[in-house]
């Protein structure tokens, strides 16, 4: 579904991503793991068109998308829930969700999806008129995921959905991600919480300073010694 080939991205003279390749198959959850500065967020922002690669290609459903303007990516079927959630803080929950559906014109379908989001996250439904900035971190993360789903994406990219959340809230969010997969959404997940991410993932890629150093199935990576030592804190 998504194919990234020899992707390199630079900020000025600093090369943040140094020629990485990976694929995401339809129906899978694929994780990109790594420490801060490994290039995970840069990779997602490049797929979304917010950044341009210096070389390499991004293909979605067989078509190159690395020259498509950022605002047209979502219409292709890719939604990106960015790092730090990045809600529109002064706008209401409902307006945030409607912005998630910005490219759609089917009022009835949008209404239906709003109701579905409120059913999935009742707290959002109860406080739909309140400004998004007033919600707790976990609630904001729910809203960020719900907002991304409002475009009815085929590929959902989530950047650090567990960042700053309590262990209980992290579990809730991870369960939600599993549910989204079960309902047919393909997911590209960036996480620092390797344990939680790998437990869900069909496949994982480990990034270190802009290069992929390891890739395997989620289950195999959970057992891998290097991953256990570096990312899971197990000796």
């Amino acid at each position, binding site marked *: 579904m998504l194919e990234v080939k020899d992707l390199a991205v630079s900020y000025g003279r600093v090369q943040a991503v140094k020629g990485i390749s990976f694929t995401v198959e339809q129906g899978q959850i694929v994780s990109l793991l790594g420490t801060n500065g490994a290039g995970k967020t840069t990779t997602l922002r490049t797929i*979304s*068109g*917010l950044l341009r690669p210096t070389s390499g290609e991004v293909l979605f459903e067989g078509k190159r998308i690395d020259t498509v*303007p*950022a*605002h*047209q*990516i*979502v*219409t292709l079927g890719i*939604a*990106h829930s*960015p790092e*730090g*959630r*990045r*809600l*529109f*803080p*002064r*706008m209401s929950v409902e*307006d945030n969700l*409607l*912005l*998630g559906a*910005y*490219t759609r014109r089917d009022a009835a379908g949008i209404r239906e999806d709003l109701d579905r989001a409120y059913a999935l996250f009742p707290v959002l439904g109860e406080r739909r008129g309140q400004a*998004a*900035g007033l*919600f707790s971190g976990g609630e*904001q993360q729910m809203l960020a995921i719900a*907002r991304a789903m409002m*475009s009815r994406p085929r590929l959902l990219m989530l950047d650090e959905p567990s960042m700053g959340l309590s262990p209980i809230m992290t579990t809730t969010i991870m369960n939600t991600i599993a549910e989204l997969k079960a309902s047919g959404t393909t997911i590209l997940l960036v996480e620092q919480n390797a344990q939680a991410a790998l437990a869900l993932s069909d496949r994982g890629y480990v990034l270190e300073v802009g290069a992929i150093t390891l890739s395997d199935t989620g289950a195999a990576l959970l057992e891998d010694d290097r991953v256990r030592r570096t990312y899971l804190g197990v000796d």
Partner: protein
Amino acid sequence: MDLLIQQLINGLSLGALYALIAVGYTVVYGIVQLINFAHGEVFMMGAFGSYTTWMLMGSPTNLSIGVALGLVLPAMILGGVLVSVGTALLMERFAYRPLRNAPRLAPLISAIGLSIGLQEAVRLFYGQIPGFPDSRRAIPFPVIEGLTGRSIQVGGVTIQHSAIFTLGALLICAALLWWFVNKTRMGRAMQATSQDADTARLMGINVDKAIATAFAVGAALAAVAGVAHGLRYNNIDFQMGFMAGMKAFTAAVLGGIGNINGAVVGGLVLGIVEAMATTYIPGQFGSSAWKDVWAFAILILVLVFRPQGLLGAKVVDRA
């Protein structure tokens, strides 16, 4: 008492003029954090656009009130709006968009250059059009039957028809603007862009288009202000945008730059302060020569003691 009410009304109508212009500063600042110092010239172009429309209609005079208010004035407003919006869109496209990622100072200098350039262009070339008046000096604004020079008396208070026009225009424009920003898809896109442009892109919003729309909206209101100015002062000139622009900028800062309601409140408050200062401050300090001093003293006081403005500019609070 009559004097107080009279000055309150004078202040409100002057303030409405400032408010119509101030909205343009604030919507553009809200979305790109740029003070468009050429916005005063967008207002001036609106006034000249409406005058040009009147000329193109064959400079009609001695009309019935119905034709003047029902046909000629709306056509002049429409013509002014088209010229202002066109000017603002060209500005945004060619002077500001290429500098969007440049240091803050670059678009500011670009704005000042545009401001001088537009003034000079009107001064030098407008009068060169065959049959058009000399634009190096003030041009008498067309007489609109039923508006120009007419007033009503309420007790001891005189209310100019042009004041009613200006206040009515502000009311209508503010209501339309509120509806546009809060209830339309493009309005929501503008709000999203002003809060977080990159994330707006991820939602599928064409950020360039949202920014251009903000310029266009501000320009449309400035054009209405241009007509209101012509009706109030009975003439227009190539420099009219300078002082009006500075006052409106002051109003926008007073209300809280970036905040649309703030621009309206700031405009009205500034107008009232000016009107009151010329009436109640004794001696030469209360003379009309000093009214600009009081207006800008307010700007300085606000910047020192309440830099977020009266209504408190919406602080950037990223979730």
